[in-house]
């Protein structure tokens, strides 16, 4: 009985430790889930890409307000669901919102008048995908921008937490890229 207890406890401990080690040591990063409807993703990607190019031109022409308006319209506009167009669709929205917030912040040196609205927008988007998206540069930038906004709002502890999220995500991305480069 004693022998059996030892043997089985050894097996159970080994099983648990083995699974945990293998799962954590093979990297936390996962790729995005694929879209169910590829056409929807393609249409969205074309639209977003073209809008970015238009925003490039508006910024270049000095029409920052127009650029912000264009980004707001696309960010708040129709977007295919994550289930339909995959996580890449969420990343694209994070890219749009990240660029929008960056432009807004660059426009205002101190505390933007609609800081809370911007924070709300970012927080809403960071909760896309249940807040459990695989590491990606778009979401990492959004987390960093959230930190910047919180810092401007004087909420330093919360800002630090957001910066840490961005840093963690960037670290995983860097690990993956370095591995890829070897």
């Amino acid at each position, binding site marked *: 009985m004693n022998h059996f207890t030892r043997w089985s406890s050894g097996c159970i401990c080994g099983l648990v430790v083995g699974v945990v080690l293998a799962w954590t040591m093979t990297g936390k990063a996962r790729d995005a889930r694929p879209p169910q409807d590829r056409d929807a993703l*393609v249409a969205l990607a*074309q639209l977003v890409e073209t809008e970015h190019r238009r925003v490039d*031109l508006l910024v270049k022409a000095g029409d920052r307000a127009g650029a912000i308006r264009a980004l707001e319209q696309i960010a708040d506009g129709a977007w295919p669901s994550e289930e339909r167009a995959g996580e890449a669709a969420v990343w694209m929205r994070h890219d749009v919102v990240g660029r929008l917030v960056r432009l807004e912040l660059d426009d205002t040196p101190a505390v933007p008048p609609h800081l809370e609205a911007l924070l709300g927008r970012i927080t809403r988007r960071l909760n896309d995908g249940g807040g459990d998206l695989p590491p990606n540069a778009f979401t990492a930038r959004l987390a960093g921008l959230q930190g910047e906004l919180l810092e401007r709002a004087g909420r330093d502890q919360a800002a630090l937490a957001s910066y840490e999220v961005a*840093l963690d995500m*960037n670290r995983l991305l860097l690990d993956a890229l370095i591995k890829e*480069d070897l």
Partner: protein
Amino acid sequence: MIRKHHRIMWAVVFVSGSLASCAKDSMSERTFAASDFSQRGAAGVEEGHPSVASLQNRLAAYEAQMSALGIGEDSPVVATREDVASREVKAAELDSFSDEDTASVAESTQPSRESRSRRPRVKQHSAAPSVAAPSVPGPSSMPSADTEEAAPSVAEDEGGDEESTTCTNICALADAVCGLEARICSLANKHSEEADYRALCVRAGQDCERAAVACDACSDPQGR
């Protein structure tokens, strides 16, 4: 007896670890990475530098395509966009400079090089990920350009190899990480008494250093 117990445990660790790794790998086979996207598609640069008017025409076409696919039937973006008239005015204003200026816009999507001494060197690599999956015009693996932030973005020209794309992305990421480090450490300076601020600043510094070294190494393969 104890030694035997340990042997059993480590044998099971090995077996279950291998099985878990295999399971994880097979799960990730059906995933979809940003690098599966090609860098530029129908809206892109392959036709040269599009004017604002042509971009707006394309936008309208893509919006129609989205509508046809039933995207946004509940909250139509298409109808609430800038109205056609204001688009035409802007197009007229902007078309005059579009050709040469889109070229400089393309340059502005590269990370700027001037601000920080530890900012990694960034070569002008070509950006397009080599695509295993069918080509979808979509996001690069780095965010779109901003004007003041060092915009982590991949380069504009197509046809580059996978290695240079990876290097471009490493350097863009290094830029982002070093930018974060600057913010975190400036915040930490305001809270110099608090250990968690200092710790994150140190960690960010290490990450920045590591990313910068990786960027330098891939930008200058001779130095590897």
